[in-house]
């Protein structure tokens, strides 16, 4: 009797998290299903790695004064950061489509939050693609670019963890930034600027720790190094403390961005209620 009751209650009120998990899984499946996209993304990945492997091999790395730094470290650094960037195509404009289509009132839907639904779907998509690219890099970087993995194998689980966190943070930044669409059709332009800021301040090609000090200080005040640098730094000859700092920064920015999302969501709902748009 009690079991039946439990089942009935479950069916009548499915847990909120179930919907979010379903959205996440849908995102994962979509990435796995979209083979043409994966193949063409892999092509970009290979081209980038080829170009920069030649650049890094001809770069006077000793001028950077980083003890033990070899071209292999730099190739792997790029392989990591590109996993994140190529794994997140169009992330900066996704939420904006709903606003642009005048469907803002959908943010009122309850009990599940539409924002979290979209984010779960995006996280599913990007985490799957980024991890697939990471798995691919484990095979192709040593084979095609003669760069053996510069870390011990057991550390791969930490790398995977930071990749997941990076994808989560990047999509959160993109989603919050895309809400600018409420003020007009600016999300595409904001997306361009945000992606370039991620490239430069996040350290897409070159680690932030190689930048002059004043730029480093500025960069670390933004969430961008937590998206790219925190992942790539695993492959550099740095201390465990530096890697741990990167990880802690990711946790900190995750907390800040989740709070920002909560506030932005509340504000948007208030906006809909007030204006009726």
């Amino acid at each position: 009797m009690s079991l039946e009751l439990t089942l009935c209650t479950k069916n009548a009120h499915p847990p909120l998290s179930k919907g979010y998990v379903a959205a996440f899984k849908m995102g994962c499946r979509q990435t796995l299903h979209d083979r043409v996209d994966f193949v063409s993304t892999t092509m970009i990945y290979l081209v980038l790695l080829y170009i920069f492997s030649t650049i890094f091999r001809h770069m006077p790395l000793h001028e950077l004064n980083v003890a033990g730094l070899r071209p292999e470290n730099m190739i792997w650094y790029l392989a990591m950061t590109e996993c994140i960037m190529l794994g997140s195509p169009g992330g900066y404009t996704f939420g904006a489509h709903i606003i642009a289509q005048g469907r803002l009132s959908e943010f009122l839907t309850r009990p599940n939050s539409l924002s979290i639904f979209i984010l779960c779907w995006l996280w599913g998509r990007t985490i799957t693609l980024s991890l697939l690219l990471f798995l691919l890099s484990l095979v192709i970087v040593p084979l095609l670019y003669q760069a053996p993995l510069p870390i011990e194998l057991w550390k791969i689980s930490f790398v995977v963890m930071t990749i997941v966190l990076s994808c989560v943070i990047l999509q959160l930044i993109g989603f919050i930034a895309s809400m600018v669409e409420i003020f007009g059709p600016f999300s595409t332009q904001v997306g361009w600027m945000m992606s370039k800021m991620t490239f430069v301040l996040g350290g897409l090609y070159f680690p932030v720790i190689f930048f002059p000090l004043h730029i480093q200080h500025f960069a670390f005040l933004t969430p961008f190094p937590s998206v790219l640098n925190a992942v790539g730094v695993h492959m550099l000859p740095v201390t465990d403390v530096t890697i741990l700092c990167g990880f802690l920064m990711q946790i900190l920015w995750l907390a800040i961005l989740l709070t920002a999302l909560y506030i932005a969501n509340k504000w948007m709902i208030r906006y809909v209620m007030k204006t009726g748009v």
Partner: protein
Amino acid sequence: MNTLHWLSCLIAHNIKQQFSDRKNFLILSFVMFAQNLLFFQMWTIMFSRISNINGWKMEQVAFLFGSLTFGFGIFFFLMGGSNLIARQIHSGALDSFLAQPRPVILSVLFQRIRPDSFGDFLTGLLILLFYVPLAFKPLLLSMILGVSSGLVMVALRITIESLAFWQLSEEAVDNTFISAIIAASNPQVGYGPIAKILILTIIPTGYVAFLPVEIMRSFSMPLFLWQLVASVVCITVAVVVFYRGLRNYSSGNNIIMMR
């Protein structure tokens, strides 16, 4: 009305149309300009820490970026339809261009202008003025090379977009072109002989970056002529591929009257 006159009227009309929403035009151009400069900063930051990459100094990288954005800006500003080809093939929207008495490829390419590419053009101009010696000869040479590399980029875009005639998806077309841009917009140093042959033949990104930079470093008339001839060959190949593909095109039943 001859084709040139028609083309000039079309471009003038497109520009007027864009300027009817001047605010949007300026915002798009400015944002593109700003984001290009932001991206360029990555190299300036790096070259503040290292002296050169296999002989390439900041001047070479700046010329590469400047000439690419300059040429890219001019052609993609005027030929804003170049990145719509695949989408229009898939949606059957090419029909309306087939019904016109003008060359199909010109109608498709010049159907609109891209305001954001004006920002590319401005970035290129600024970087070239800043990094190329302010004398008539080097400036003229850099602009010619910029136009030539822009022509190669537009040829690449047309060729890749035309692959949609053979059922290549839009996503794959976009990603292939992104690969070409990446290959063209970064220093092409230390390439092996096979890679050099590839970038000067099948994937002609060498004419966007590698060869123009070599010509600017030490001018050589045969190399300069090679660059000019190659850009003409690239655009010819692109037109041939487009018209070969057009034979495979099946109508989307969208024939409508256009201006």
